[in-house]
């Protein structure tokens, strides 16, 4: 069964049709690419999926359940986690705290437990810390656990955002330009990490990305949008040579050119 399905989704801002009639399906345990020139509406699509914006038309289904218009926290609890285009860490909190914030499923005790410092509370805190440390270890961030997250180098901040998202135990992970600002070495490591997320952690990944080496290297299927509309969908090989895609990225050939 399809994990994520968008069905003719629209999003309008004032007079601007940011997203118009976009439909696609994402299979479980795959890496799905969402690409397009700047301003094409990719992040808007992410925002609609995750409930930051309400869709003005169409439906979004996750695991067969209609999640259109749910609030972001509800979408997160349903199993969809994300990272942001401009890293949105809790900057003055420590690395470990950033990850722990997302640990709701591990934290069953109540505010009263916290106030009274019951055993239940202490156990929950310990479990949260343990799990956070495990995730940090996976992403090579364990040694920074007590550091203020805003002081981390850029690449580490991006990895931390992913670790934090994984604390939600999601089935679907939306990565918004994870390779931004990376050199080819780091981008190569990112490709490996994404494959790891799919193969070892059994996740499904949807990737918005401009770095074509990463996109072509890890995505099984790619969906291309421009000006809010779908212009192509297919395998990396198909997309690489698709005339509409080339036109969108490189511009139309000039009239009268030889």
């Amino acid at each position, binding site marked *: 069964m399809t994990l994520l399905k968008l069905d003719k989704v629209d999003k309008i*801002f004032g007079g601007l049709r940011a997203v118009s009639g976009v439909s696609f399906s994402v299979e479980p345990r795959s890496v799905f690419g969402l690409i397009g020139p700047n301003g094409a509406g990719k*992040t808007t699509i992410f*925002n609609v999926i995750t409930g*930051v*914006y309400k869709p003005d038309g169409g439906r979004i289904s996750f695991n067969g359940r209609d999640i259109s218009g749910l609030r972001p926290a509800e979408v997160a609890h349903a199993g969809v986690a994300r990272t*942001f285009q401009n890293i949105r860490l809790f900057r003055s909190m420590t690395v470990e705290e950033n990850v722990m914030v997302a640990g709701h499923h591990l934290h069953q005790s109540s505010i009263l437990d916290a106030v009274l410092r019951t055993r239940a509370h202490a156990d929950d805190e310990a479990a949260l810390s343990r799990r956070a440390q495990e995730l940090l270890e996976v992403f090579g961030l364990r040694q920074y656990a007590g550091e203020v997250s805003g002081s981390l180098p850029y690449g580490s901040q991006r990895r931390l955002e992913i670790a934090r998202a994984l604390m939600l135990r999601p089935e679907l992970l939306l990565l918004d330009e994870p390779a931004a600002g990376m050199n080819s070495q780091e981008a190569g490591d990112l490709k490996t990490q994404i494959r790891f997320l799919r193969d070892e952690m059994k996740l499904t990944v949807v990737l918005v990305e401009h770095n074509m080496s990463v996109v072509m290297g890890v995505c099984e299927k790619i969906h291309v949008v421009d000006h809010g509309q779908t212009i192509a969908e297919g395998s990396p090989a198909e997309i690489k040579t698709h005339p509409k895609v080339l036109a969108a990225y490189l511009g139309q050939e000039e009239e009268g050119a030889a």
Partner: protein
Amino acid sequence: MSELVQQIINGLSLGSIYALIALGYTMVYGILKLINFAHGEVFMIGSYAGYYAATVFGIERYQASGATFPLYMAVVVLVVAMAAAALLGVSIEFLAYRPVRSAPRLTPLITAIGVSLFLQNAAMLVFSPNPRAYPAIIHEVRFEAGGVIITNIKLTIFIVALLLMFGLHVLVQKTWTGRAMRALSVNLDAAKLMGIDTNRTIQATFAIGSALAAAGGILFGLDQITINPLMGVLTGLKAFVAAVLGGIGNIPGAVLGGLLIGLAEQLTAGYLSPDYRDAITFLILIFVLILKPEGLLGVVRQEKV
């Protein structure tokens, strides 16, 4: 019926004063996204400036000899007070707000509260906390028609407010400064990159807003007869609500909001109870912010994620 007309006239004149003050709030917020808490105090000091200017220009001599203060002198008093307030507004911007302009949102807010508090209490020390009678810069003449009393002071309020608002409109629409102000309120950083001198434009905004508030202060003194150092607190807050009601950042909105608040207050005092005249403004504020925070004429802003 004449009662209703009377209340409406009183409400609109009060509202015109609120509108003059609200313009200052809305212009500053439009550009800096800052609630200038101290603006109410600029209104108050403008009023006192009028008081002292009239005294310096010898209003007591005129009153002693039974003559009326000449109109041209009243205009001079107005101009002097507006200039003084403009200077105060610019100083506040330069000394208190500019150093924290780039700080996270909370810091300028606290600074503004501090400036407001400072001016209130400094005024109480300098001017004494006791209310004073406002000099008759315009000598009151009453007209009655069909049970409705209207004074030349109310007429003056309408005329002065109208003239100043028209002047502002011309300034904002037709001059370079006005164009710059509009550009800054849409996108501060882009305006800076386009070569607009943001500091000068911001100073101009504060100067103009403060001058308008001072005019409001003099009109308020003439209308309400007494002034005191804390007059800016409540009136300033009401004018701010007016700006929000009309759509903060929106200039015609400030005028509309001011008139509506003035009417609401007057009608509440007249038909409900004078005890609740202040509460109605707070209620309007709460309703607006909860139901339609962008105000009557404002636009909804989506935050970019």
